[in-house]
C-alpha cells in the first residue's frame, strides 16, 4: 500500500486577491476622473462605446497597479500600510502579478483602441508605462521628487476620457491633467507627515525622510499656492463657468488655509493632537479633487440646458 501526502500550499490566492492586485480604490478615482473628462468634452460618444472605453481605462489602471505591486513587493512587506497586499502576504506569487499586469495592460490598450481611438489608447499605454516604469522603477526609490513627477501617472485619466470623446488633446484636457498633477504632492506629503515611520523604515526617499518634516510642511504650502491658479484656470476655461469659478475659489482658499495651518505647526504640536490638522487636510484634499471634477460635470450638465459656461 502506498501512502499519499497532500501538499497544500501555505496560502493559495482566492479571486479577491487577484482583484486586490489591481488596486480597486485607485481604480475608482481613475474611473471617476476619466468619466468626467469624457462627459465634459465637446463631442458625444455612443454610450456603449463610452462605457466599454472607460472599463478598459480602469483595467489599464489596474494593470499598472499589479505591475507596481510586483516591483515593490520588497518595500510593501516592510511598510505597515502595505504589508497585507497579496504579494508580500504570500498569497500571489510575484511572477503571477507580473504576468497579470503585462497581460491586462495589453488587453486594455488594444480594446481601448478598438472601442475609441489610437490617441486614447496611446495615452493609456503611456500612463501604464509612466506608473510602472518611470515612477515605480526609476523615481520612487531614487529621488524625493518621486511624488511630484510620478503624480503625472494619476493625472492622465481625464485626458484619456477627453481623448475618447474627441480623439485629441486640448487646453481643457491639459488643465485637468495639471490640476491632478499639482494636487498630488500636497496630498501625499500630508499623508507622509502622519504615516511617519512607514516610508522611513522602507527607505523610500520621501521628502519627510530626505529633507525633514519642517521642509515638507513648507513644500505643502508652496505646492498648494501653485495649485490654486491651476484650479482657477480650469474654472475660466471652456469646461468652467461662474459656478465652477465660485466652487474653485472656495476650495482653493480652504486648501490654502489648511496648508498654512500645517506650515505653522511644528512636530511637538502635531504629536500633541495626534496629527489632527495633517489628517484633516489630507481628508479635505480628497474632497478637493472630487468637488473640482464634480463641478465640471455639473457645469457641463447646466450647459446642456443653456445655463452654465462662459
Amino acid at each position, binding site marked *: 500500500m502506498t501512502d499519499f501526502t497532500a501538499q497544500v500550499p501555505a496560502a493559495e490566492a482566492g*479571486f*479577491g486577491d*487577484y482583484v486586490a492586485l489591481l488596486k480597486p480604490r485607485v481604480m475608482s478615482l481613475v474611473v471617476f476622473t476619466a468619466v468626467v473628462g469624457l462627459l465634459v468634452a465637446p463631442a458625444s460618444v*455612443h454610450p*456603449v462605446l463610452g462605457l*466599454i472605453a472607460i472599463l478598459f481605462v480602469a483595467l489599464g489602471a489596474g494593470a499598472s497597479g499589479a505591475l507596481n505591486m510586483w516591483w515593490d513587493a520588497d518595500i510593501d512587506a516592510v511598510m505597515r500600510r502595505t504589508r497585507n497586499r497579496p504579494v508580500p502576504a504570500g498569497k500571489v506569487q510575484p511572477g503571477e502579478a507580473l504576468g497579470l499586469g503585462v497581460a491586462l495592460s495589453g488587453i486594455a490598450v488594444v*480594446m481601448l483602441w478598438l472601442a475609441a481611438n489610437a490617441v486614447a489608447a496611446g495615452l493609456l499605454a503611456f500612463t501604464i508605462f509612466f506608473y510602472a516604469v518611470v515612477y515605480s522603477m526609476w523615481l520612487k526609490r531614487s529621488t524625493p521628487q518621486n511624488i511630484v513627477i510620478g503624480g503625472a501617472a494619476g493625472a492622465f485619466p481625464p485626458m484619456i476620457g477627453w481623448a475618447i470623446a474627441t480623439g485629441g488633446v486640448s487646453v481643457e484636457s491639459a488643465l485637468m491633467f495639471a490640476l491632478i498633477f499639482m494636487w498630488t504632492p500636497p496630498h501625499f506629503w500630508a499623508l507622509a507627515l502622519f504615516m511617519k515611520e512607514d516610508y522611513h523604515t522602507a527607505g523610500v526617499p520621501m521628502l519627510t525622510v530626505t529633507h525633514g518634516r519642517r521642509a515638507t510642511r513648507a513644500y505643502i504650502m508652496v505646492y498648494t499656492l501653485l495649485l490654486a491658479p491651476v484650479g482657477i484656470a480650469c474654472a475660466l476655461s471652456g469646461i468652467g463657468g461662474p459656478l465652477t469659478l465660485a466652487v474653485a475659489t472656495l476650495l482653493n482658499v480652504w486648501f490654502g488655509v489648511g496648508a498654512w495651518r500645517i506650515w505653522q505647526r511644528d512636530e511637538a504640536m502635531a504629536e500633541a493632537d495626534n496629527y489632527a490638522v495633517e489628517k484633516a487636510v489630507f481628508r479635505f484634499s480628497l474632497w478637493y479633487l472630487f468637488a473640482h471634477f464634480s463641478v465640471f460635470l455639473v457645469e457641463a450638465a447646466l450647459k446642456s440646458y443653456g445655463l452654465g459656461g462662459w
Partner: protein
Amino acid sequence: MSFQVEHEIHKRRFGRNLGVGVLLVGMVAIVFALTVVKVTRGMPLKGFDHVVEPELVPVEPVE
C-alpha cells in the same frame, strides 16, 4: 470509506474558477456589444475581396 473533498482550498479554487469564467463570458459580451454598435453605425460593411468591385469605387465628379 468516503473522501472529504470539501477542503477550504477547494472552495477558494472554485471561487477563482468561477471568477475567471464570469470574466471570460463578460469579455465575449463586450466584444459582441462593440461589434453590434460598430456595425449598426452605418459604416460601409462591404470591402474589396480579391476582385475589384466597380460599385465600391468612389465616383469622381466630372469637370
